[in-house]
Each structure stands twice: as structure tokens, then as C-alpha cells.
């Protein structure tokens, strides 16, 4: 069916007859909420209805209707379908919607993102600054009437490519001085980033410089990154230190921002598939699935039986491979340079061999298609898969445990560090291993099963410690559980067709909205796609776990030593391709 979330169970419009109406646009679900009553209704949804996990907040620009919309998607950590509610406002500046940050602190970075990309203000948000683009950026790039410097046409395919496609370089139509857009009277030559940096630094200085004994203590600001080996790319954390202790911290990001979502709205539905590979480039098999899921919901098509099994196999292999690399890199961050990393890469290479054989590429797999996968698994790859699942990987994961789990040096670095209580973890919208390491048994494969996960036996791994040790253990144990799923899938995979019908390059997607979410190795990966019946999506939003899991970074770091910041950040398992999008 084309519906995304059943909202039958809760009828907000009878509870708030004056402020809520059902969203009855064709293909849409959920509720339209009056802006002035948003806080009241959101509090009710959080407190009375127990929707404690704010999965995603995002904006939509309905340019033809002259409206802006903000969509809230909330779930219960006890499982079950979610609740969608939306606020619509007229599309004229200043656009304002009250912030829900006090109800769900997980809205923090997401509301900043909406301000940055859509220009909607959130009164009540304590630190509403641009987040993905730079401080001097002009305009709000996700608005439908904003055009990028290399703008060619509203949507692909571009007409200049065929049948009269004489090749030209993009910069030939856009000479350098036209490629950048600045605010009026702005001169990049003599611009120094005073104001924005000041705003950043003031937002950090929430604490007095006097300590308990009345002694003046000088605090210093340290920029960790953007070029620092621990940040796994270009991520910057501005840290205020008292001695070696972290007093407060702000993440700064966007160095790798390419406006993936704008590109996604120029693309056709099929075009987006290889682009999703480049989000979390360790887990392209998982990214493909989440996107395929959203579009399949819109199209209302079934996935063939054999493809469902192949999807489970590939996405569990990807989970093992991701967690292996995570262990290796985490140990690297802690100072055990390269040895565990190479042990992890040995197994990862074998898994990537399988990916290459089925999909043609080791990392940028581009393997899933709407309704199935692109091609069947070759016999050779299946044989290797069986050897790995039955013979090799169980022993190798145990070897990792022997290497690390009791190692006193590791334990002294991870035990009791980076504490995040279950309550805080849920409030800040943490998902995936981070949430489960705080003792919350929330796994989308169980909470709202997708694909054929309801057919497999596996345990949702949790740990009660809420620290780095728990995060390490959850991931090791999850690899064992993935192997369990793989064993079942490999032994029961049926023969049959891979795609329901002959693939076409121009898929027909009926109008409506869909949210496809999966349990990616890093957390909840969701794609929110809106179709208006045309060949290109009207809205294409990525709910990226790496991005949202950063919300709790400050909470985990405050009070710890600066050296532990590296470990705490490492344990979140971020990938910058996904974080900055």
C-alpha cells in the first residue's frame, strides 16, 4: 500500500477540534496543525501519547501553493507506527514557527538545518545559526526558487545533452566570477568572520570563570578540527576547556556540504539511487534500501521474494563490515594504531569482494532497484558468502573479543566515559547502537519491521552501562546477531525472479508522500520523499543518523577530559558524507 504510517490509532482532530485537521491531500497522511497551537499539541503528543522519539523534522517548500510546511515525524521507543504532523505557514518572510526544542531536544540541529536551508525561523531555539552552509551565504538553498551557480535547468534530464549534445564544460557557461553568490555589497576579499564566530563563541560561554573556591580560572577555547585526525574527515568541534576538562562544546559542520537534497530534487527517481551510495559511503547497501523503500511505498509495488532475501543478506553483511571498521577505527582513535584496523580490514575486504561480484563496485554499490535488486547473486559469490558466514566470520569476531574485550588498557579508556542516560538519549533523538548502548531496546527491524525482518530470529542487543564500553559491546554483539540472521537467510533463500517486471528508466510515481526508514548500522536512516506525479521528486529529504546523533555530543563530553572527546566522537560512528550531505 502507498500509505506510510497509519494514524488511525490516534485521532488528533477529535482531541483538538479547533487546531488540527486531517491531512487529506491525495497520498498524504497525518495531521495539519495550527502554528499557534503547535507547542500545546506537541506537548500533548509527547507527554500524553508517549511519542518520545522525534525521528525527523524537515521543511517542504510548496512554491505553487505559496506555502511552507514543516513536517514532524515522531515515534514511540516501545515500537509501532509513527505519527506525522505538519505545520503550514504562508510563504512570505518572515516565516516563523515556534521551536519544539524544549519538548524534543533532538530538534536542535534539525531546526537549525531548516533555518539554514529554508529560512524558517524557530523562536525559542537558543542558538539558531546557519549549520550546513557558511555564515556569509546568501539565500536559503532548498527553496524552490533558489538557483545554484551552475544552474542549467529545473530538472534532469537536461535538454542540452541530446540530440545536439556538443560537449561544454560547466564553467564555460559560468565564468568564475559568476559562480559564487554573495550578499549585496559583500566583498569576500576583506571579509573576516567576526560576527558569526563571535556568536558561536558566546553560545559557548555559559559558565562562569570562577570555580567553587572563588579562584579565577582562565578558560581556553580549543578548535578540534576541521583538520584533525580524530574527526574522520572535516568536522570541527569548538571546545571550551577548564584545564583539561571540557566545559562546553559546539559542533561546527558543513565543510563537506553539497546540498545533496537539492541535487536529489533535480534528479529523477532513478538518478538518486547512486547518489545515496555517497551519503554513508561505508554502507551503500543500506542507503540504497532506505531510498528504495520510500519510493516503493509511493509506487505501491511489491518486492520479489528472492530480492527480499538478497536485500537482507547484503544489508546484514554491510552491518558486519561497518561495525568491524568501526572497531578498528575506534581503536585507532584510542591510540592502538593500525593493528586492529588491519585485522578489521582483512575481513572487510572479503565482504567487499562479494559486493563487487554482485554489484560491480566495492563501495558505491548502486545495487537496489525499485521492486528488487539489479541482478541476481552469482553462484561464486554465494559460495563465498556461505564460507564467510558459516566458517570464517564467527571465529574472527570472537578473535576481536579476545583481542579487546578484557584488555585493561582499552577498559580504562572506555569504562564510565561518555555517559548518556537512556532518558537523554531518547530526548536527543539518538538511534542505532548509540541508543541501545543506553539500555533502550529500540531497533527498527523489530519496532516497525521492513522487508522480511519479521521472519528472522535475532535479539535486539542492549547494554545498561550507557558509556563507551557499552557502545563497543553492543556493536560486537550486533555482529553476532547479524551472523544469525545471515545463517537463516542463506539457508532459506528461495529461487525466483529478481525484479517484478522489466526495468524501465522512467518510473511512474503517483503523487503523495512516503517515509522509508531502516535500521542502518549507524542508526535510523530515513528518506522522506514527496511526489507530485512528475518524473522528479518534489521533496527528497535524508534523515541522516550521523547528523542527528551529533546532537548529544556536548552532553556526553561535558565534564570529561579533552582526550576523551576523541573517543566519544569516535564512538558515535559518524561519516562526514552523511553528516554534511
Amino acid at each position, binding site marked *: 500500500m502507498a500509505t506510510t504510517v497509519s494514524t488511525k490509532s490516534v485521532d488528533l482532530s477529535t482531541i483538538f477540534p479547533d487546531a488540527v485537521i486531517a491531512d487529506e491531500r491525495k497520498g498524504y497522511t497525518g495531521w495539519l496543525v495550527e502554528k499557534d497551537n503547535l507547542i500545546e499539541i506537541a506537548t500533548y503528543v509527547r507527554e500524553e501519547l508517549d511519542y518520545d522519539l522525534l525521528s525527523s523534522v524537515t521543511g517542504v517548500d510548496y512554491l505553487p501553493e505559496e506555502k511552507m510546511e514543516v513536517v514532524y515525524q515522531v515515534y514511540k521507543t516501545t515500537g509501532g507506527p509513527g505519527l506525522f504532523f505538519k505545520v503550514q505557514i504562508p510563504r512570505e518572510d518572515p516565516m516563523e514557527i515556534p521551536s519544539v526544542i524544549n519538548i524534543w531536544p533532538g530538534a536542535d540541529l534539525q531546526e537549525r538545518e531548516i533555518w539554514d536551508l529554508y529560512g524558517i525561523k524557530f523562536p525559542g531555539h537558543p542558538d539558531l545559526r546557519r549549520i550546513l552552509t557558511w555564515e556569509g551565504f546568501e539565500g536559503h538553498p532548498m527553496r524552490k526558487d533558489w538557483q545554484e551557480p551552475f544552474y542549467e535547468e529545473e530538472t534532469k534530464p537536461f535538454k542540452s545533452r*541530446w540530440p545536439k549534445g556538443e560537449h561544454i564544460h560547466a564553467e564555460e557557461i559560468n565564468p568564475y566570477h559568476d559562480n559564487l553568490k554573495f550578499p549585496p555589497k559583500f566583498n569576500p576579499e576583506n571579509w573576516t568572520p567576526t560576527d558569526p564566530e563571535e556568536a558561536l563563541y558566546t553560545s559557548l560561554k555559559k559558565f562562569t570563570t570562577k570555580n567553587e573556591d572563588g579562584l579565577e580560572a582562565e578558560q581556553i577555547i580549543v578548535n578540534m578540527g576541521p583538520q584533525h585526525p580524530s574527526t574522520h574527515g572535516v568536522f570541527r568541534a569548538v571546545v571550551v576547556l577548564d584545564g583539561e576538562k571540557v566545559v562546553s562544546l559546539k559542533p561546527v559542520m558543513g565543510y563537506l556540504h553539497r546540498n545533496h537534497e537539492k541535487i536529489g530534487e533535480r534528479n529523477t527517481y532513478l538518478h538518486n539511487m547512486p547518489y545515496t551510495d555517497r551519503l554513508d559511503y561505508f554502507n551503500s547497501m543500506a542507503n540504497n534500501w532506505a531510498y528504495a523503500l520510500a519510493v516503493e511505498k509511493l509506487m505501491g509495488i511489491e518486492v520479489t521474494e528472492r530480492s527480499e532475501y538478497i536485500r537482507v543478506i547484503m544489508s546484514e553483511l554491510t552491518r558486519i563490515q561497518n561495525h568491524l571498521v568501526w572497531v578498528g577505527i575506534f581503536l585507532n582513535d584510542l591510540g592502538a594504531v593500525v593493528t586492529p584496523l588491519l585485522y578489521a580490514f582483512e575481513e572487510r575486504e572479503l565482504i567487499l569482494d562479494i559486493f563487487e561480484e554482485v554489484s560491480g563496485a566495492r563501495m558505491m554499490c548502486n545495487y537496489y532497484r525499485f521492486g528488487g535488486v539489479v541482478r541476481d547473486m552469482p553462484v561464486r559469490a554465494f559460495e563465498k558468502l556461505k564460507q564467510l558466514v558459516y566458517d570464517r566470520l564467527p571465529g574472527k569476531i570472537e578473535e576481536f573479543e579476545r583481542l*579487546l574485550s578484557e584488555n585493561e588498557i582499552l577498559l580504562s579508556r572506555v569504562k564510565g566515559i561518555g555517559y548518556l542516560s537512556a532518558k537523554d538519549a531518547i530526548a536527543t533523538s539518538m538511534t542505532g547502537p548509540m541508543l541501545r548502548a543506553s539500555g533502550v531496546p529500540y531497533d527498527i527491524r523489530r519496532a516497525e519491521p521492513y522487508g522480511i525482518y519479521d521472519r528472522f530470529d535475532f535479539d535486539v542487543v542492549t547494554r545498561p552501562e550507557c558509556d563507551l564500553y557499552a557502545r563497543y559491546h553492543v556493536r560486537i554483539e550486533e555482529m553476532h546477531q547479524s551472523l544469525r540472521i545471515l545463517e537463516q537467510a542463506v539457508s532459506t533463500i528461495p529461487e525466483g525472479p529478481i525484479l517484478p517486471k522489466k526495468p524501465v*528508466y522512467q518510473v511512474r510515481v503517483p503523487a503523495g508522500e512516503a517515509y522509508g526508514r531502516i535500521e542502518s548500522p549507524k542508526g535510523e536512516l530515513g528518506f522522506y520523499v514527496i511526489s507530485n506525479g512528475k518524473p522528479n521528486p518534489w521533496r527528497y529529504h535524508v534523515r541522516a543518523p550521523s547528523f542527528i546523533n551529533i546532537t548529544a555530543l556536548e552532553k556526553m563530553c561535558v565534564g570529561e577530559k579533552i582526550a576523551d572527546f576523541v573517543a566519544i566522537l569516535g564512538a558515535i560512528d559518524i561519516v562526514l558524507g552523511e553528516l554534511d550531505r
Partner: protein
Amino acid sequence: MYGKGILKSLSVTWKRFWMTYIEDLSWFFRRMAGGVNRYYTDEGIARRSSADTRGIFTIQYPEEKLPVHEESRYLPFLVYDETEDGEKDVRCTSCGICAKVCPPQCIWIVGKNDPDSGKSIPQIAEFYIDADICMNCGFCSEYCPFDAIKMDHEYELAAYKRNIYNMDMLLKPAEYYASIRPENAAREDEARRVKEEAKAAKKANAA
């Protein structure tokens, strides 16, 4: 006992350390008995990337190279069949599907017109692929209805200049395609043969 965990850890690295020697020695003895070397041979590479690899597993690129799989994809190329008089019969009909389906829009096609009537004919005048922009997704070859564009296995593509591939650089013979992707080529040839036979049968029936 404090330190037990570290000893346990070290036992793993210790075991791994000795494993490299045991593995290398076993290949040494095999070589004495007439076998091949573990390094710089296909067998050795196959062993190192198999599911029971142990010891050193790295491949000494560029002296050694991992085998490329049938489905591996790097950049696309255009396929032509050789006619009896040695002419190049380019399969592409300039239908434009690959240019439409290409996500970063890096395919540029110039169609051909009949010199007499001025109508467009199913041939290409020029075909460009901006290889710097190509994301190696494989869509062009997946959706081409004429098996005219295929993904190459050549991956050493570093260059000093920007890479705009034109038709001269893109055209490769069908034999080359069959040599890098034998299974695919055989399957497609068979499908084309069946189709042509069906067409011929239909014609015969109609006549």
C-alpha cells in the same frame, strides 16, 4: 589478575605473527615440491583473497593486481561490430536513453541526419563522455536497449588533463567486450539471435 586481559590480547597478535611464517613456510615447501610462489602469482593472489586467507593478505599493487570481476564497472565504452569488409558497425542508434538516464548528465550525444533528406537517422555523429563527472554507476549500460554501451574494466585512469572521451576513445570492438564480460556477452548475443529469428519467422509467416 590485572594484566590478564593484555596477555590475552597479545596471544592474538602473537598467533597472527606466527601465522604469517607458518603460511609462508607451507608455500615454500609446496614450491620445493614443484608448486608456485605465494607472491606475484595468480594462485597466490587467489589464496590471499579467498575465504580461508591467513597470514599476509595484502596485495602488492601495482606489481600484483586483484582480478577484476565480470560485473565490475569503471567507465563506459561504446561497442562496435566488425563487418566483413573491415568497417566499424557502431551499435549505438543515438536513441538518447543513456544520456537521459545518466545521473550526473555527463553523456553528450550528437545525432546524425541523413545528408539527402535531412531527417535524423539511427547513427551517431559524436558521442562524448565527461569522464571526470561520470560516477561509474552503470546505468547507461543497464538501460541501453541495443547493448551499445558497456562498462569497461580499465581502472588505471589517472591523467594530467581533464578527460573528455570522444567517439575515437570510446569505441571498442565487440570481441573486447566478450573478452572482459564473457557471461554477459554470451547471454546478450543469444537474446539478440532469438529476437532476430523470431523477426525472420514473422516475416516468413507474413509473406
